[in-house]
């Protein structure tokens, strides 16, 4: 039962570490095998990173995640300035998710430090794996934030209203009170003696 756990954990760690291009000591890829020789399909039993390398790598992860957060917050401020509500909603969602993941990463780093101190290899590997996954998620969220679509793409132009008015309808407002017109008439003859 314990062996099975170790196997699964090792397999997972191996795959995640492969994915980190910046890892200082990546596991050798399968393509390293001699052509024509039978492929090595065995699974590494333990990570090749030393505890110090894990700590250093986790700090690198933390720095990368902080950079991502800073960049996404910049995008958020930009969306606010441009009053692009569609993009702002999208970026804000990413900011929230990045912060949650960074909170998880901080806990993992603390646990990793303790595991290194205790020389608990299993715990150390587990926390490093968590950090790696969280870092991946943050990087993905950063990329998604960059791709948040705003009004520049969804905006189809100002609303244009075409009004057709029957030409028979007068342009002036017939509901207005009549103008103070002058009723000037020739006065009636008052009498044969006047005028």
């Amino acid at each position, binding site marked *: 039962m314990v062996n099975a756990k170790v196997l699964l954990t090792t397999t997972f760690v191996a795959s995640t570490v492969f994915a980190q291009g910046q890892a200082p000591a990546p596991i050798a890829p399968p393509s390293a095998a001699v052509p024509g020789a039978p492929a090595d399909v065995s699974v590494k039993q333990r990570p090749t990173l030393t505890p110090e390398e894990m700590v250093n790598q986790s700090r690198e992860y933390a720095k990368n995640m902080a950079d991502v957060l800073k960049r996404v917050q910049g995008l958020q401020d930009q969306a606010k300035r441009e009053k692009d509500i569609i993009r702002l909603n999208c970026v804000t969602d990413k900011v929230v998710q990045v912060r949650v993941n960074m909170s998880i990463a901080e806990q993992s780093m603390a646990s990793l430090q303790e595991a290194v101190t205790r020389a608990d290899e299993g715990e150390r590997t587990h926390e490093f794996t968590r950090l790696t996954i969280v870092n991946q998620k943050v990087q993905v969220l950063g990329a998604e934030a960059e791709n948040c679509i705003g009004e520049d793409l969804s905006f189809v132009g100002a609303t244009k209203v075409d009004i057709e008015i*029957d*030409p*028979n*309808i*007068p342009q*002036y*407002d*017939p*509901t*207005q*009170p*009549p*103008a*103070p*017109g*002058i*009723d*000037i*008439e*020739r*006065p*009636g*003859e*008052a*009498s*044969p*003696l*006047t*005028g």
Partner: protein
Amino acid sequence: MNRRLVLWVPLAAMILVARSARAQEVTIGYQGLPYKASGESSTGIQVSDGVLLHVGAGAEAGYDTNVFYSSVGAIASPMIRTSVFGDLSNATRTGAAGRISFDARAGVVYRRYQSDDSAVEPFRNAWMPTAGLALSAGGGQFGFGIADTFARLEDPPYNPSSVPITRYNNQASAEGRWAPGGGRITATLRYTNMVDIFQGAYSFSSTDGNYLMLDGSWKWLPKTAIFLNAQQGYIFYLNEAEAAVNKKESSYPLIVTAGLRGLLTEKTSATVALGYTNGFYAGNFSTGGLWGSTYLDLSAMLRPSMLSRIVAGYRHDFQNAVVASFSYNETFYASYVQQIAGRLALDLSGRYSHRNYEGQFVDPLQMATGRTDNFVQVGGTLDYFVRNWIYLGVGYSLLSNSSNIASVEYLKQQMFVRLGLTY
């Protein structure tokens, strides 16, 4: 609309014969030469940015069958009439002027009787200047406008041995408009002052009229509204001594009406106003009774096509009179305008007014018998527009009065050929 507000002095008024159907602002009677810009947007001289000058001139040559409005022995005369005007505004050729607009105009009409008759000689020439100024601001929720119009009018007297009937009329007004809630409800407060000065035999009838009007309307459709209108006036005579001799008294006319204004259909508009009115004359005689205290105005306008317009109306009211304190008036009027092929313009209109004079009469004999006039006015013009700014035409005018006082009856006809241009 704002220009419409105050620059409305029918040219026909200048020749002392016309009275317009106010509700629809349609001039009834002979449509004389232009005295102000017609509102044509494709003409005018661009004086500077935002200032447009319209100019116009016209000439009429014709024949007057009854120079002195005589009941017997009418004296006829050939006549000519010319006019020139200038109209300066900040309207543009392409559209409205904006939220602030102004319009200033001035013109003069010259009339000459060509007859060699010695009776006509003293009244051969008449110069009749006009002027107007309107300023308007706003147009949204708040609006404000002031305006002034002036006209000098001169016409031969009834009695050839008398002096010409000369009238100076100046009307100034200021109004504020408030239209909250997107304009569905509109309130208008307007003050109008009208100074009306006669020279000669009718100088006793020179008046200063002051009117304060408050109008509130509610549009339940974009161009149809019900309204409540109240107007209080104060009219007093400028020559108190002469007025007293001729039994003229100050009055405080009140009119309170309610009704409907605006479109009934796309092609039909109407005005229905019913209300209470009272002259409140200072003396013993004043308006009264149920019908005498009733104000009723019914008018309808139909536009069968883009090139034609029909107006018909009826009005019951009272009016300050020169020959007596006032008259109850029953007035019917109609107008038909038709353009043909974009070149010909036909204008036909007529009015019948039954006037029952009441109160104190200038002529004591009429006091005893009473006086009822039946005034008929018909006008027609047919113009051919060579261009949209120049036209040639013919015109006809008929004025008639029948009365229980035989001496005040007359029939007057005028025929013209005319040339006009407005640019």
